[in-house]
């Protein structure tokens, strides 16, 4: 893929993710979706990261990584099915919306307790090193998540054992209502030093800048097997979730469509580079809208999971206890 194609594709993903985001938020207000954590604002950093990775790399992502997943080829159906919790969902409708899973694309299933994916990512990286493979692990989390026990454990272990894992902190400046300045006194990338790990900061709102840094760090990690912490500075343009009302605690500083919006920034650069013109951009947006609307209606019709599925997959084989409870409940 040449550079133009690569960036145009990246841009298309960003637009698609944003379009899907808006659709789901609206659907949630209409009572068609239970809950959602919008991604708005974090598209550039995720797609920039994804561009630098190989198919075989493993991703231990968090709940806001829709653009990341779309860019790596996860079908939009997979995401909507998860949001709906329907019978086609990879997770059999068991998880709350925004807790995706896509094993075929090497995406781990998302848990809710934040940052608890990080130690797992370190274990996965250990397995890679042990098996002398060449893939790497990327794990993502928010700025608030750096305060957790799991962040500390994972960072130290990755450094001590020299493991090929990239810690991508998606610093969107807020952890629900807590601004990052009250989360911790230090810039996040600097925390890497405390573990003897390299730390890098990048403008995560700029697709091009993000890709450059991601490419360099992925290459380094792949070759040296060493971990790195990347702080991608961004902004949570939406509410924390559809249950959240940010007006209670902040005035938004970057509004959708304003010049700080990563999509607007990307458009500007793409036009400067002559990769896209206004007409093409318009078409990309319309295509995205058409696709999202169509897929959304389509997936909405998928039946819910059958009640028996509730009793599967607790263990490889259901215990007699679960069988009995199933009999009592169904």
């Amino acid at each position, binding site marked *: 893929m040449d550079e133009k194609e690569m960036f145009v594709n990246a841009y298309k993903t960003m637009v698609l993710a944003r379009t899907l985001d808006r659709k789901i938020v609206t659907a949630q207000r209409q009572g068609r979706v239970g809950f959602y954590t919008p991604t708005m604002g974090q598209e550039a950093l995720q797609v920039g990261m994804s561009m630098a990775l190989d198919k075989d790399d493993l991703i231990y992502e968090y709940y806001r990584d829709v653009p990341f997943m779309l860019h790596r080829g996860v079908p939009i159906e997979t995401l909507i099915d998860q949001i709906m919790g329907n019978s086609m969902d990879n997770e059999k409708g*068991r998880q*709350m919306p925004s807790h995706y899973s896509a094993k075929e694309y090497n995406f781990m299933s998302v848990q809710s307790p934040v940052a608890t994916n990080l130690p797992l990512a370190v274990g996965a990286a250990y397995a890679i090193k042990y098996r002398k493979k060449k893939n790497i692990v990327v794990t993502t989390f928010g700025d608030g998540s750096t305060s957790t026990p799991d962040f500390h454990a994972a960072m130290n272990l990755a450094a001590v054992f020299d493991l090929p894992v990239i810690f991508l902190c998606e610093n969107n400046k807020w952890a629900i209502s807590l601004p990052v300045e009250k989360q911790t006194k230090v810039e996040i990338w600097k925390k890497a030093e405390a573990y003897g790990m390299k730390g890098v900061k990048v403008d995560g709102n700029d697709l091009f800048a993000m890709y450059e840094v991601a490419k360099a760090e992925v290459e380094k990690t792949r070759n040296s097997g060493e971990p790195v912490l990347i702080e991608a500075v961004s902004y949570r343009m939406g509410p924390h979730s559809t249950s959240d009302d940010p007006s209670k605690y902040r005035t938004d500083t970057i509004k959708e469509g304003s010049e700080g919006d990563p999509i607007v920034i990307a458009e500007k650069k793409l036009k400067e580079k002559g990769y896209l013109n206004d007409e093409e951009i318009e078409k990309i947006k319309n295509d995205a809208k058409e696709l999202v609307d169509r897929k959304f209606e389509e997936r909405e019709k998928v039946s819910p999971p059958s009640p028996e599925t509730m009793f599967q997959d607790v263990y490889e084989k259901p215990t007699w206890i679960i069988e009995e409870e199933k009999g009592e409940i169904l």
Partner: protein
Amino acid sequence: MSSKQLNMVQAINSTLDSFMAKDDSVILLGEDIGKDGGVFRVTEGLQAKYGTERVIDTPLVELGIVGMAIGMAVSGLRPVPEIQFQDFIFTAFDQLVNQAAKMRYRSGGSYTVPMVLRTPYGGGIKGGLYHSQSGEAYFAHTAGLTVISPSNPYDAKGLLSSSLKSNDPIIFLEPKRLYRSIKSDVPDEGYEIPIGKASLVHEGDDMTFVTYGSAVPLVVNTVSKNNLNADVIDLRTIMPYDGETILNSVKKTGKVIIVHEAPRTLGMGAEISAFISERAIDYLMGPILRVTGPDTPFPYRLEDYYMPNETRILKAVKKLQEFR
């Protein structure tokens, strides 16, 4: 005596407010409890009223919230930590089990932890695996912890008031499903509901229901709707549970159904059942039955199948009625 119709969120909020007004050692801490007022709005308005030093927005670290609260309590404050969802308490579990619960004992009574840890628990809001868990058995199995769960706004105020006067660490479990779904008449004045005493919320002779938290309205409605001649015991305090009230009822009815949302295996139903069969076996006129959540994680889309419901309770009733 004046009173107001309040929901549980309001009842808890106003109770915290009145204790904070009286006693400057009461301090709240947790994630998003200040400006945001808590994700369920339980602490709404309190930071504006009492300042950021007394209603503390903490970084994202449950073990730090609990650990700090323990240290504050040891130093003479009365911290009220909030864990945003009970599901996240496990990241702080060591602090609860090995510090809070064992402090008085290990220090020979020198140090104590008067702390009220509040947290919403249970299903019914489409929260899936990680926003729906009912972990009361983990706490109740831990010697040194007191575990409380109100089933209505009136009890919420009375039990929280007693908790705020206790000198032991309290796990105050708020059934999130009931936060706004029921109102009760709540006196403006202070009152306390004693810790360790159950409440007989319905009386009858044919059978005994033992329940607590969000299952109480379900059981009471089922009993009323179906004209069951039953005692319904709302435990109010899960640990130490009120064995006496349970025994008195069982000796009268001889039949027992325990209802809770937590998983069956080693849920509170197990303890209540064992307690009864240890000391009232000759009064029993049928098996002791449990209507509970199953031993699976809590599912999102199928949550209605997870939680106990009227049909399942009536199935148990029928089984008991047909016994022998």
